[in-house]
């Protein structure tokens, strides 16, 4: 058997193990985001949204749905890899992988794609829930899919790096609590950056999540929010390259994994 076939089997093994994991514990992985997002739809869309009026040229409920989908994708792709890989570290079952001949890039790809699928799974679930509240029509299917896929990949990589550095379960929650949540809330999920006064608008442009949310919203709603979609994709690809390189470096030196 050639080396790439070995690697393909190994990738499929890690990938399907990850899918099996989050499907097995669906009340912890799929149900909570569905409930949380339903509450967001009710509160921000139906209750508060009706008083807000229009945002970015759309009624508030229509505007907020793509943002909430992305928020779910970001948090779920991140937390899937972070908790799964850390759990394997904690139980030492990661040693099964480390003693095997699986190359580091296959390990990273398997876990990352597992996180991406969880993110997409939850994204579709939230989208379907959103369809109960607003009539959504995808304007640019390719941009929509690319935006959500790249975003899920980026944050799955982030989750992997978080898990590598984490020493206890509390450490897995630090980045989501102190970095991801503020950046997501300030990343144009609930409002358009155009409504912000300077210098807050310019500061917001430094937030990478803003580009992802706007690219996805553009794909769904078909209206340019003033943030270049092309630039958004450049930012995402660059960020993925940087994060993947970092994660591979950590695996190579065995940070938190090898003594």
């Amino acid at each position: 058997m050639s080396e790439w076939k070995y690697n393909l089997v190994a990738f499929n093994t890690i990938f399907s193990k990850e899918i099996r994991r989050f499907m097995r514990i669906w009340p912890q992985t799929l149900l909570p985001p569905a409930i949380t997002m339903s509450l967001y739809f009710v509160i921000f869309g139906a209750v508060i949204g009706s008083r807000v009026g229009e945002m970015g040229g759309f009624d508030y409920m229509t505007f907020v749905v793509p943002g909430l989908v992305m928020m779910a994708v970001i948090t779920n792709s991140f937390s899937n890899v972070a908790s799964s890989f850390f759990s394997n570290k904690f139980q030492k079952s990661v040693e099964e992988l480390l003693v095997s001949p699986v190359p580091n890039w296959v390990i990273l790809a398997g876990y990352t794609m597992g996180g991406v699928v969880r993110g997409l799974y939850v994204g579709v679930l939230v989208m379907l829930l959103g369809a109960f509240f607003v009539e959504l029509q995808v304007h640019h299917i390719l941009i929509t899919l690319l935006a959500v896929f790249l975003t899920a990949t980026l944050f799955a990589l982030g989750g992997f790096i978080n898990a590598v550095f984490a020493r206890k379960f509390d450490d897995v929650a630090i980045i989501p609590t102190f970095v991801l949540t503020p950046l997501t809330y300030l990343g144009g999920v609930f409002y358009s950056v155009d409504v912000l006064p300077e210098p807050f608008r310019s500061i917001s442009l430094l937030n990478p999540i803003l580009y992802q949310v706007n690219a996805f919203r553009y794909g769904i709603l078909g209206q340019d929010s003033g943030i270049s979609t092309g630039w958004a994709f450049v930012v995402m690809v660059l960020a993925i390259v940087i994060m993947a390189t970092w994660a591979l470096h950590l695996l190579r030196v065995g940070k938190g994994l090898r003594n």
Partner: protein
Amino acid sequence: MRESRVKARVTLCKGFDGEEALHNTDYKNMPQALKIQNLRKQYDNGFQALKGIDLSVEEGDFYALLGPNGAGKSTSIGIISSLVRKTSGKVSIFGHDIDTDLVRAKRMLGVVPQEFNFNQFEKVEDIIVTQAGYYGIPAKEARQRSEKYLKQLGLWDKRHNVSRMLSGGMKRRLMIVRALIHQPRLLILDEPTAGVDIELRRSLWDFLRDINGQGTTIILTTHYLEEAEQLCRNIGIIDSGKIVENTSTKALLGKLQQESFVLDLKKPIEYLPTFAGYTVKMLDNRSIEVEVGKHQGVNDLFRQLSECRIEVASMRNKSNRLEELFVNLTSDASATDASGADSSGQTKGSAAEKGEAHGE
């Protein structure tokens, strides 16, 4: 014996991989199953776990690596399996250097660690099939292979059980199946029978003898010295990060100068008679302890006992023979280590270093 083992190995390889080319292999020049040269490990906190060990294990061997807690056994296994980074030195598995050819070296190796290190929430079969997948074995083939080992080790009925529900002995057997699923040529077991009952320990011994007979080279660490004596052809003793002995089990036991036996008596005795040529002490009025020299034998002892009308009900070794040697060797090494250390913490020439040279 050795030749038959090698033949078995060839049959095994042909069966698994169809590598007909092995027919013409020059076995005498085949690389050793494991070769360690001047291996050193210093942890970040400055602790020197390994102080330059040399070790080689021949293909087909059943080798025991013994040593007290903290001697460096697990660190050595960690380095061989790439879970621990070495400070310096060389390690090769069947000629594949772990620095330059790690993937091939890993394919040759199966490891059963001391601690349970599988996902406690997964099912037995899933754990094994997943591990096989890491070695490029598709799930269907992995299930077929796992059936054989699961049945042999009495886990077949438990294959759909979540692993955390297994008993300690079952978990240990699960780790053995997992380590064998890719049919490694070298199997390393770190304390494989720790905490398992006697019956299970004996059945594991039979299993290990069987797979060794089929050609798999086995290295085990154990605290049960009887286990090493029963199973292993060669023994290495490691202490304070150095190999202090590396020889055949037979040669090692040959170094034993005297053995102590406990004799249980049929009837109680009031006082202890003197026995010419033997050191005897009374443990209680129904048992005595006798020291017997290497070349003495016990016939004369029994003659003298008979003359004194003392009837013996049973006789047993006071302690495991290997245990006595082990204690002597490791205490010697510790003493040498302490006296040989100079002000800079370096050790001078010692018996321990002679042991390392012997090991190479």
